[in-house]
């Protein structure tokens, strides 16, 4: 229940933040990497650092993570198939071999079919997802955003302590 409330708070807070639709969409896209790929991997530390360092919506990132985790589980067979195809492609073998024998890179577990497949999938959908989300956020703010902002539900939500924590990382 608390997680659901937090998710709704994040969603509403992010949609009505002072950040631009582009910042929110970028945060969501970075969050999608956390949700689509297996979490405990080195590349996700880099994604987390980017979420904090880049001027994108951190709340959008957390929201993207929460939203895309179920898709990650659901699409694992596809990721496995993609990763298998990429890792065992004869044309790419020299690339993987040199990466596998480099310092640090093997610690990303890129040689795992799920990790590579999901990362490549997230990378491929990142650009279309960014533009689609930016358009959707802009449309939301133009249409129903103002009415939601004046609703009692929104007032109650933004008055909670969690919202204050969120404001620390708002763009």
């Amino acid at each position: 229940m608390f997680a659901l409330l937090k998710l709704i708070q994040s969603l509403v807070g992010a949609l009505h933040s002072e950040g631009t639709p582009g910042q929110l969409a970028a945060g969501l896209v970075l969050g999608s990497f956390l949700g689509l790929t297996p979490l405990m991997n080195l590349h996700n530390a880099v994604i987390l650092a980017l979420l904090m360092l880049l001027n994108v919506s951190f709340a959008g990132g957390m929201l993207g993570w929460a939203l895309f985790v179920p898709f990650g589980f659901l699409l694992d067979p596809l990721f496995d198939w993609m990763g298998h195809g990429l890792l065992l492609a004869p044309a790419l073998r020299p690339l993987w071999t040199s990466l596998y024998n480099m310092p640090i890179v093997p610690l990303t577990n890129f040689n795992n079919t799920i990790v590579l497949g999901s990362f490549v999938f997230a990378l491929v959908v990142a650009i279309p997802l960014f533009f689609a989300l930016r358009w959707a956020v802009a449309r939301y703010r133009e249409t129903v955003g103002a009415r939601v902002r004046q609703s009692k539900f929104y007032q109650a939500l933004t008055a909670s302590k969690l919202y204050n924590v969120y404001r620390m990382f708002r763009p």
Partner: protein
Amino acid sequence: MTAPATPRVKIFRWKAVGPLLVFFGIVGVLWILFADTIARHATQKVGTQVIGAKVEITDLHLDLSHGKVMIRGLTVASPHEAFRNLLQADELVADLDVVPLTEKKLIINRLAANGLRFGTPRETDGRVAAKSAGGDGVPSRVMAETREWASQFQVPVLQLATGKISIDSLDPRKLSTIPAAEALGARADSSQRAWKAAFDTLRVGPTLDSANATLEKLKHARATDLATLNEARQAIERLKRAQGRVTSLERGVKTGVASLQSGLAGLDSAKRRDYAFARSLVKLPTLDAPHVGAALFGPGAIRPFERVLYYTQLARRYMPPGLLPRASTGPARMRRAGEDVRFPKEHALPGFLLRSAELSFLLHPTAEQPQRYAGHLTGFSSDPALYGRPMLAGATGPQLAAGAMVNHVHDIPVDTAGATLGGITFAAFQVPGVPLRLDPSARCSRGSASARATCAGYVIPDLRAAPSAT
């Protein structure tokens, strides 16, 4: 009119550098605090997956600044016996190469193992692969293969029929002796009738009487009595024809007798077949020497070699020859594990390498006179083709002299192992159905077995074992 200038959005959020550094600092502190615990759990988990039996560690300390790992209280359960450990070690000290760790490669320059004990009892069942033989995971599959291989030596000592014997099985019509005897009897009767008829048609008596009468007439006839002479010539012709008929009958009788004798022999073999059939119904064992030897000594002598074969096959899976990419099951996690693909590269370090290990250990530590052994291991690598040298292992002690070479450097692996084991106790067994228990160890207190196995290629070896009892 110009449009109002939109404020430029900054790319970096510099104020987040502090919290980010604090975050990574916390991660670093947690690593320092829990690295030993994490490494211990990871080692236990990986060890259990690799060996197919529980691996437990009391304490593990990482000292990466000095390239050392110390393990205290290592217990590896036996993959084959439920309440027995494969080994226990008081202390293992490993000297690591730290730099290859950044490439996710574990290079152990030297491993010293102290206080090794083998075959100690344990309170819980530590088997993992044996309980899921044939399932997922390399040890489970290897366990199923070695069990199948060893089953060819498992000859039952004595197995009598149990339960009801089906009436159908005892149907006299299924026996071959009776029809064969009936057919032979019919043939004998038929031959007898044919011979009697042939004898009756000989008519030798009238011919002889006629010849005697002609002879008497010749005695008193004159030399010019042509009619008598002619009669004598005809009598001689009749005698010749009678002789031919007798000879022909004799030949026919001899052939018939031979045929009946052959039928009698066939009857004997049919009788033996029926005996074998009847014996098979009550499952009486054969008492051939090879079967008796295998039944008595097989289970006791083959068990150590089944285990050696298990570890050899594991080595083949974990130390494959060649430099081609190879996939293995990925790490267990909530999400799908996927597959890890390794990409060995020429002139690079292998993923795992144990350059040298010195072992000193006790067998039967609880006995009055524990047996002290010394062992060594060199060149244990996950990519033998990269290391370029075969793995060598050896152990010597009071009841064991063993050596092994695992050569997976080239495309075709060659594994050679030789061992002489002493102190094998042959199993006692109860003879089913009778109050009799045979105990070979009562007459021959201990046995020994020597074996040398060479396995080239990818087939399970044809082991040449020579059990002997003293």
